[in-house]
């Protein structure tokens, strides 16, 4: 088979972004070997990043499947996750129980937030992605005031001088940093593989897979594929979209907590602003579109995207030591992928 035919076959089967990113990743890995970098550490780091971002990416599935498109308003769920994380510290909880309680507390908060979000999305059918993006931006800005005003008292979290309002970055060391990553961690050539976090991600993938096979999940997929068909089959389309949005927001909250425990900090204020974009980029690289997404898209997309980011940084820095070039590459890749995907959606209609 000649190279052009092979290229066409691959891009037809896996989609253009997936093939391109895979190639880039392969080139970076070869580069890393040639530069004699610590490839094992890179792999371990990649695994950490995959596990820490996975659930945020998974949150895209219910929103896409229910027909509201990519959830650019995921920052809403991220904020409720952060809030739950702060409450766990305020209650002076520590370790795994602090993390799990934060997860449990985030669920009702996210559900309420998701319900309000879903209500708005049902009013703006056809423009969910645009409205979601700006709604996310608005709520992030609004919560920037909220973080200052919320009556948290824990000295670990409030500004040291003055004593009112939460800090921009709250360290989780001594609280629940790395509780999942260190759970059943496996040594790997001097690094550690975060078994617990990977298992946690896998558990949620399994739950999502089961949900999509349930009666409600099937109805949701029908509402997303063809709302007219669903309505004619007696399925309440708005309700299915609402369910999809609520689940997506809840997963956003949980995903944020997983991210935070791995990262070791809660980042408030403007930090959640751009997080949905990384998640959308990952699921799109995995081969999803604004109308179709599967667990396989999530897993493969997260692996490719996060591995690329992890590997590209040291390789590019070693090749051309110019400031933050790798960061620029990361922004070009993630925004480029989103742009590409949106051109394929036809404006969300």
């Amino acid at each position: 088979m000649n190279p052009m035919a092979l290229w066409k076959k691959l891009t037809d089967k896996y989609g253009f972004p997936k093939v391109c990113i895979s190639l880039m990743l392969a080139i970076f890995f070869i580069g890393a070997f040639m530069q004699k970098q610590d490839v094992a550490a890179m792999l371990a780091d990649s695994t950490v990043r995959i596990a820490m971002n996975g659930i945020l990416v998974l949150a895209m599935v219910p929103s896409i499947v229910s027909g509201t498109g990519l959830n650019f308003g995921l920052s809403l769920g991220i904020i409720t996750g952060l809030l739950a994380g702060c409450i766990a510290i305020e209650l002076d909880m520590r370790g795994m129980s602090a993390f799990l309680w934060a997860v449990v507390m985030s669920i009702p908060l996210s559900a309420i937030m998701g319900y309000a979000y879903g209500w708005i999305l049902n009013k703006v059918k056809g423009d969910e992605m645009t409205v979601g993006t700006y709604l996310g931006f608005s709520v992030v800005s609004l919560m920037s005031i909220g973080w200052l005003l919320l009556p948290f008292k824990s000295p670990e979290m409030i500004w040291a001088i003055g004593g009112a309002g939460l800090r921009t970055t709250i360290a989780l060391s001594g609280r629940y940093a790395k509780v999942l990553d260190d759970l059943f961690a496996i040594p790997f050539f001097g690094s550690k593989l975060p078994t617990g976090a990977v298992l946690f991600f896998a558990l949620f993938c399994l739950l999502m897979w089961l949900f999509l096979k349930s009666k409600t999940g099937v109805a949701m997929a029908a509402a997303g594929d063809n709302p007219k068909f669903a309505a004619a089959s007696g399925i309440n389309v708005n309700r299915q979209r609402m369910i999809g949005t609520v689940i997506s927001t809840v997963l956003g909250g949980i995903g944020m907590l997983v991210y935070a425990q791995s990262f070791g900090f809660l980042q408030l204020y403007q930090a959640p602003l751009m997080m949905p974009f990384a998640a959308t980029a990952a699921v799109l690289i995995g081969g999803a579109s604004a109308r179709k997404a599967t667990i396989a898209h999530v897993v493969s997309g997260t692996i490719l995207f996060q591995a690329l980011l992890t590997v590209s940084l040291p390789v590019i820095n070693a090749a051309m030591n110019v400031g933050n070039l790798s960061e620029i590459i990361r922004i070009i890749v993630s925004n480029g992928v989103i742009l590409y995907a949106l051109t394929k959606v036809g404006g969300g209609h």
Partner: protein
Amino acid sequence: MDAGFLLELRNIEKEYFGNRVLKGVTLNVKPGEIHALVGENGAGKSTLMNILFGMPVIYATGGIKGQVVFDGKPVEIKSPKAALDLGIGMVHQEFMLLPGFTITENIKLNREITKHNPISRIMGDSLKSLDVPAMRKDAQKALQTLGMNVDDWLPIAGLPVGYMQFVEIAREIDKENIKLLVFDEPTAVLAESEADKLLDAMKKLAARGIAILFITHRLDEVLAVANSITVLRDGEKVGFMTQEEATIEKIAEMMVGRKIERITTTAKEAADNEEIALSIRNLTVTMPGEMVKNISLDIKKGEVLGLGGLAGQGKIGIANGIMGLYPSTGEVYKGKEKLALNSPRTAIENKLAFVSEDRRGVGLLLDTSIEYNIAMTAMQIRGKFLKSFLGIQAIQMADDKRIRAHALQMIKDLDIRCTGPTQITRRLSGGNQQKVCVARALTMEPEILFVSEPTRGIDIGAKKLVLDLIVKLNRELGMTVVVTSSELGELRSICDRIAIVYEGRIETVLSPLASDLDYGLAMAGKYSTREEAV
């Protein structure tokens, strides 16, 4: 060759992808003549008009055979611009007007009268200013020709529909070289008095020497104004008559023609069964383009009822209204039970099922597998194909094994040609998609099955299969079937009774063996008036 003809179409043939829609049509129009073109939907009228206007769709699909002679010269009309240059004008069924512009501006759009100003003398013609008084004078002249007294500086938005129609016509006759005007069902949207005014205007135009080609379904209008009449049926010219020879009966009979082959030889006994399966009272359905106005109809148990009529008269709206897809008012009783309207769920729960005319829009999940398409509605409403999750009753999971088995059975029973039950329905041919829709309806085990336009967009072989299937469901499973179709022949071949819908009302209910004349009159809305006269 008669040099007196303005337009001669000689033996026009046209194929769309191997489907012959025009089979050698000949049409001659004299200057100053009103020539009516009548025929059922799909008779080839629109294709003929598209040819006359050089619409891109004609030449994108391989062009035509035959000859077009205009004003004594053979011409090839390859673009709408060419048609305009020849002096052929069109009055569209849907208005092509800019609502925010005044009447004059609309009439003169893109043909504005301009004059020089100091800037345009330097910068070129595109900056010339409009000569508004001259434009208004022209517009007034055109409007007066049509016998219309209205301020030409009013905006279009807010004018009565009838006026808009006149503005369209005024725009056409304002073109200096206009020789032939085509009216495509101009009276469809007009009230009776407005329609009369329009017909008067047409006569005036004809008196000025402009030839008019008049397409309509309203036979009395044809008789009132047309000098000559051509009847098309199935892409063939089946008749030509002059005003003197024509009668409504004659036109009606020609339009319908005998083209039925009954699959079942007699109207079935069930037609005499008086048990009512579904009773419709005062049903009004707001479905754009297919309005149903206050219909009452009884559907007998075990019959195949046809709903026929021309496009846009409302036959499609009936099933859509009962199934809750479009807002409706009135009462529908199944047996003694009154069904709530505007709720697809209630309709499905009461064992009604619907195969939509809009197959790709409503009937299918195009990116979902065949098996899930078939099982979806039954699963959601009937609770079929479900199993509990690890014994927890509250969590209902799709039972893939049973879904697969059922889909395989349906694929076999209905002979759905596919690569397997997991193929997505977008990749199937029209006929097989239709079978998937039917399979989904059957999976709900309905007592009453509504099938709309079952053979639309399906090739001839598959058509027969789908119709046979409907008959089989009725005869073997005793299912009550309501078939809505634009193809009268199809209805007459399978139905026990046929209700003809005209302007949102039931014109009459006919036996499939009734005469072509009766059908022609009923479709043209003349059946009841004639009955009264007799």
